[in-house]
């Protein structure tokens, strides 16, 4: 039996961005959040280091300002971030952080009782508000708890498969709701809504080594791309410099913020060569590329010379245990390394997608099309995206550490406010009679198939192909090789089987549907990488080593085409205060 629901607003995803939007709307609208995991299990909880905001609490390096935060973010983005968006972000981040403090986040404190702030890569001031090395956990729990106070309705462990999108009278598209199912029973559910927020997070799980959760499978990207809507700047995938070797578990940049340094096999502090001013606190793109260069030139550590060391013991045991307690634990539990005495083995790990669902610069509404002048000319009315799922574009070609947590609460809040203002003018949507039929059929076809390939086999091949073809350094032949594999895997997916035939909590069926999403946006990542014949930020092409502003100071908009290579058009970048310069650290 299909179950129908109506809510004014549906938020898909219960991480920081989604919950922040829901908390904004809860006092005035009927808002419900759908999440494939219980809300506090969302990936936001794994963020460690902190959230950037120009509070000027820590003035060790001088007073901070929104303008300086804006400049650092623009430079960090390698000038691809949209400056109207970045300006709004830098101005709003302090308010958003203070709001989170008022709602109970147990931020670490300075002796005068104010929120403590630590240094982070690419930021010229110590502007990272944090809670030891569990900042994401503390923010997410505080926000979830406020949503409990406000009686936000949750559909916990429900999986959204598709968006319901229609054509509007004015030539735009319009959202009507979403289709998904109850993971506990496999029963199909249809949610009608006046507005929908996609806060589905990122999707590092398309790579074999990642700091991302198993659940981080880019479902929002998949839904958008499969619906024929564009994904933006997907070539910009961030490799965090310090994943715990060999697992890829995140070791926060806060370790270097607290004084940690990277060392090669000769014991050299090699960042002196790559970033003479910022050293170990260079942005992540620069640092990951430096680590890879050291390894390629034979100065890696370990028997395979395939990683480097992160040393922190020189700051002293007490400092480590009070400021980085979880890091001490991770290193000890998973590698037996006591980081109060010896260095932590680290290697770059897939961490974050700067690209995503393109949104309007001022509202966060999803962009459906870009005109010949390079500006959006069609939107999906009342469909919004926020957080890592979205590409505003705040981060451009490279995100600065600690800007993503601020991103989620600033833009989750903005989307909430924008919906608040427009809700009364939106009519209750009608639904076509055949809504949900396709999704029910898709589930049945997968469940009924008895011969074919397992989900895990196809997924493992995808992850290996993506790592081999599009990790820290990229080049045409490898990218095209990976694309060929992905195209082939997409065909093989039509023959995917699950052994679990039960309607009850069928995680294998869920993994199959996730895999379809992954195979889709992986194609967009590779298409973006191949198209962008330059090196900018996290996208480093060995065959096009220079940044090329003449041709590529533009966003990449990637559209799926059946049986063909994706179509690509370019979107203009908003440049207001800071003209592109050469980027040195």
């Amino acid at each position, binding site marked *: 039996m299909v179950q129908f629901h109506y809510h004014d607003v549906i938020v898909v995803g219960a991480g920081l961005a989604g919950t922040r939007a829901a908390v904004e709307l809860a006092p005035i609208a009927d808002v419900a959040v759908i999440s494939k*995991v*219980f809300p*506090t*299990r*969302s*990936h936001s*909880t*794994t963020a460690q280091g902190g959230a950037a905001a120009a509070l000027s609490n820590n003035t060790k390096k001088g007073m901070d300002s929104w303008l300086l935060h804006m400049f650092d973010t623009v430079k960090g983005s390698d000038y691809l971030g949209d400056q109207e968006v970045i300006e709004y972000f830098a101005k709003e981040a302090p308010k958003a952080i*203070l709001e989170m*403090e*008022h*709602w*109970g986040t*147990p*931020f*670490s*404190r*300075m*002796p*005068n*009782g*104010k*929120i403590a702030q630590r240094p982070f890569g690419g930021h010229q001031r110590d502007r990272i508000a944090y*809670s*030891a090395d*569990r900042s994401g*956990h*503390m923010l997410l*729990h*505080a926000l979830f*708890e*406020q949503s*409990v*106070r406000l009686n936000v309705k949750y559909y916990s462990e429900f999986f959204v498969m598709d968006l319901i999108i229609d054509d509007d009278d004015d030539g735009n598209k319009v959202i009507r709701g979403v289709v998904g199912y109850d993971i*506990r029973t496999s029963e199909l559910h249809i949610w009608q809504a006046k507005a929908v927020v996609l806060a589905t997070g990122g999707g590092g799980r398309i790579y074999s080594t990642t700091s991302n*959760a*198993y*659940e981080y499978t880019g479902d929002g990207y998949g839904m958008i791309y499969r619906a024929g809507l564009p994904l933006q700047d997907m070539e910009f995938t961030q490799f965090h410099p310090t994943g715990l070797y060999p697992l890829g*578990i*995140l070791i926060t940049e806060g370790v270097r913020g607290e004084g940690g340094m990277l060392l090669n096999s000769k014991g050299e502090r090699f960042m002196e060569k790559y970033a003479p001013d910022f050293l170990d606190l260079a942005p992540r793109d620069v640092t990951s590329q430096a680590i890879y260069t050291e390894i390629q030139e034979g100065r890696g550590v370990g028997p395979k010379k395939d990683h480097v060391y992160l040393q922190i013991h020189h700051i002293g045991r007490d400092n480590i245990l009070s400021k980085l307690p*979880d890091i001490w*634990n*991770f290193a000890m*539990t*998973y*590698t*037996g390394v006591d980081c109060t005495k010896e260095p932590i083995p680290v290697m770059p790990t897939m961490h974050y997608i700067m690209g995503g669902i393109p949104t309007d610069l001022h509202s966060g509404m999803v962009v459906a099309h870009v005109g010949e002048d390079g500006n959006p000319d069609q939107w999906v009315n009342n469909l919004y995206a926020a957080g890592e799922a979205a590409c505003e574009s705040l981060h451009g070609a490279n995100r600065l550490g600690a800007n993503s947590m601020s991103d989620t609460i600033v833009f989750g809040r903005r989307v909430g406010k924008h919906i608040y203002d427009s809700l009364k003018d939106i009519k209750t949507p009608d639904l076509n009679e055949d809504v949900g039929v396709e999704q029910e059929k898709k589930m049945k076809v997968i469940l009924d198939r008895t011969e074919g390939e*397992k*989900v*895990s086999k196809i997924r*493992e091949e995808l992850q290996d192909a993506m790592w081999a073809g599009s990790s820290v350094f990229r080049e045409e032949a490898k990218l095209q090789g990976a694309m060929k594999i992905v195209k082939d895997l997409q065909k093989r997916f039509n023959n995917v089987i699950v*052994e*679990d035939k*039960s*309607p*009850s*909590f*069928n*995680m*294998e069926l869920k993994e199959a549907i996730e895999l379809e999403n992954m195979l889709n946006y992986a194609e967009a990542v590779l298409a973006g990488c191949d198209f962008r014949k330059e090196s900018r930020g996290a996208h480093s092409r060995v065959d096009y080593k220079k940044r090329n502003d003449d041709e590529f100071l533009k966003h990449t908009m990637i559209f799926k085409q059946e049986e063909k290579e994706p179509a690509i058009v370019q979107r203009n970048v908003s440049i207001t205060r800071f003209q592109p310069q050469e980027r040195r650290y």
Partner: protein
Amino acid sequence: MKATFKVYRYDPELDSKPYYKDYEVEVEPTSILLDVLNDIKWHQDGGLTFRRSCGHAICGSCGMTINNQNRLACQTLVKDVDISKPVKIEPLKSYPVIKDLVVDMDKFYNKMFKVKPYLYNESTPVAGEFLQSIEDQQLIEEAASCIWCGCCTSSCPSFWADDDYLGPAALLKAYRFIFDTRDDLKEERLRIVNDADGVWRCHVIFNCVEACPREINITEFISRLKTKVVTTKL
């Protein structure tokens, strides 16, 4: 080397009663139990069902009973368990089983909601943050690092005996707000934990401390809560 894992299986849709199934897996001392379960699911038996997400002990999804101890599968390494005999893996005790290692945690969550788990204040500063000393922040930091995995409450004999007992996690959550200098609902929360199913059901058995993957000294915090209840005029 090879090790055998004896895993609890039960799908109420298909099975008349629970059973155990043995899986032989190639492991290293540093293999993580969650990776072992994934290996079984992906390469041997697609039907085996468990929750997991972050993979490094912060999301709280993969609480289960491993050789009779409540733990997170993602935080348990092969070298931490005795593999000379089959390693027994079962769902967390005292919660109804949905399927295999997946339990219905609604009862646990509802207890958390009972203590009003959110900061509430009558008025917020007009500018800036609430000021809080380093010491006052440290009063709550450890308690606030609870990940709602349910391992503690499921390990508590008082909870086994009395379903209505709030249990260690909910009491810890109450502590976290009652001792937060910014909160204005302290007395209401103290009344909730002073109830017949509240702090006085804790008999200081320390199972919760042993079970907690975050190494939170839960029993100590419950003791401080008891002191607070008796020293506050309610």
